[in-house]
């Protein structure tokens, strides 16, 4: 089952296309890293998935065919906005009660357990917590709903390294134990590299890359060779990005073997993402293309 499928998905805000003609089919059970430069359409895609806004054109189906925001799947999707909007005037314990009242499924024990582990006092008003504590509270409120799909928009931005590691651990536990699917948007590539199993790169409102991380890494190589041969390399293998330093050139290429005269090594996810981001014209890599 696909956790979400988009076909020709487009969203326009007052004459500006935030997303245009996006085709995606993401299998369930992945932690999806959603990456792109500012204004690429990441938040728009997450808000479409959350049902907070509706597509201008195209279709979007969640969890095997449900319409985003519909009553049928409302309880299965949790969304954590980057602005962490919850009721700041409520005490944490009241926030838990409100969240419990608003959802058909609510794991009070899990919520209490997480808040205790993170040292978040139940009697304090949510608005009086530090930025990091507010992010952890919001994450707790999202996870305690026991959703099937969790959408996170820059969730770790305000967390210290230790809290970030804890939060990531909690997420991964839910993925492993409950089969939770997660779509996480972040600019921190090293953080995503540790957890993501599926990668979507958006650029200019269009899908540039969408494939499992393993397939992408297996299907790309960093090639190192003489700068003078760089132009010929482009004719031999699909080159995504090229950089030259003196006599040496380094290329990110979609290949599994190095052409003669070039050395190759595996790429990291960070190198892969940066390579694509530097060349927005390099188009989407489908699962089928990578596998072949």
């Amino acid at each position, binding site marked *: 089952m696909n956790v979400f499928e988009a076909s020709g998905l487009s969203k326009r805000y007052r004459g500006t296309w935030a997303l245009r003609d996006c085709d995606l089919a993401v299998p369930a059970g992945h932690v999806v890293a959603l990456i792109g430069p500012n204004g690429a359409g990441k938040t728009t895609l997450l808000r479409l998935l959350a049902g907070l806004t509706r597509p201008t054109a195209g279709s979007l189906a969640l969890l095997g065919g449900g319409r985003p925001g519909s009553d049928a799947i409302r309880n299965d999707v949790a969304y954590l906005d980057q602005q962490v909007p919850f*009721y700041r005037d409520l005490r944490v314990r009241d926030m838990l009660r409100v969240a419990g009242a608003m959802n058909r499924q609510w794991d009070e024990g899990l919520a209490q357990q997480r808040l205790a582990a993170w040292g978040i006092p139940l009697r304090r008003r949510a608005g009086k917590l530090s930025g990091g504590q507010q992010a952890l509270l919001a994450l707790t409120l999202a996870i305690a709903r026991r959703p099937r799909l969790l959408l996170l928009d820059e969730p770790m931005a305000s967390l210290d390294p230790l809290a970030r590691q804890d939060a990531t651990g909690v997420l991964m536990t839910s993925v492993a*134990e409950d089969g939770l699917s997660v779509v996480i948007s972040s600019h921190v590539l090293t953080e995503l590299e540790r957890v993501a199993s599926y990668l979507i790169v958006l650029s200019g409102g269009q899908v540039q890359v969408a494939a499992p991380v393993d397939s992408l890494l297996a299907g790309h190589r960093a090639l190192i060779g003489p700068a003078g041969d760089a132009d010929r390399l482009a004719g031999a293998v699909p080159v995504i990005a090229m950089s030259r330093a003196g006599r040496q050139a380094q290329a990110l290429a979609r290949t599994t073997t190095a052409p003669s005269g070039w050395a190759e090594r595996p790429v990291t996810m960070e190198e892969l993402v940066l390579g694509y981001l530097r060349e927005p014209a390099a188009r989407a890599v489908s699962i089928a293309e990578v596998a072949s």
Partner: protein
Amino acid sequence: MTAVAAVPSGARRMARMTWLRHRWTVAAILGVFGVATLVLLGEGIAMRAWLDANGIAHCLPTNPENRDAACLSAESLVGQFTAGNSGEAAFLAGDTAHLLLAVPAVAALFGGLPWLTREFETGSFRYTWVQGISPRRWSLGTFGSLAVVAAAGAVVLGVVFDWWYRIAQWPVNVTPDMGWDWDVFGLSPIALVGWTVFAFALAMLSAAAIRRTVPAMAAFAASYAGCLFLGQWWLRPRLLSIAPVVARQSFGSFYPSHWNDLWLNGWITAPSGHVVTTAELLKLYAGMGHFSGTQGQWLAAHHYVSWVRYQPQSRLVLFQLAMALVLLVLSASLVLAAVRLLRARS
């Protein structure tokens, strides 16, 4: 992992969430209506006790047909109860009614609008919209709960006002069309519910459109005052002129049929059937000569007929219902506009 608790679905969940989230707002709204109601109750009970003590309670309700000599002679005494003269009693009855028309706006302004604005300003409604409660339910929960509580307060205030007004306006002469007057009409329980729900709908739209507490309060106050003016001075007269009763009326009669009918207009026709103008009427009076009776008796003797266009007292509730219905339809449109605005901006 711990066990997942199954939370009751539908209305119960919404009610629980509403109570947890809005209890202080509900208290503030009830406080506004409660204070106004208690003031009227206290005043009314004291006045009623005074009337009983002076043996003139039978003069109520304010029906001119009930008034005997004791009632008429007691009117000046009743005026003294309030402040020493009947002029101040008039102030008490009339201006209190005018002030009470602002109660729905005050409840919406201080009880509902700041909370709604905070919700939209901080974006916390977006948090709710991605929980198990749909935007439609959320709208019903936020607006509906506040409006229902306020409407309940309005019903109680309207009933108490009706009781109070019959006592308070008694000493300052009778208003034959009591209940039809613009201020009293708007304070009947039915119309007051309409104005209250409308005030909260307008507050919701102001909050959703502006998202800043003080500017939203200012915009709400100005637009509500405008709507109240239009409602009372434009819409109400037009409603009240729908399908009037036209009937003959004997000359000298003060009321069309019942003392609380609403007299819209009247005219006199000549034996030929044409409507007599004021100038013609004055000419006729000048030609009465030494006729010993009244002008009305003279006209009747010469086969002139007096006509009246009026709304029977029995229709008062219908018109109050019509007014409330118009306001409720407008309220629904305002809430829909607010939700659409929020959706577009979310």
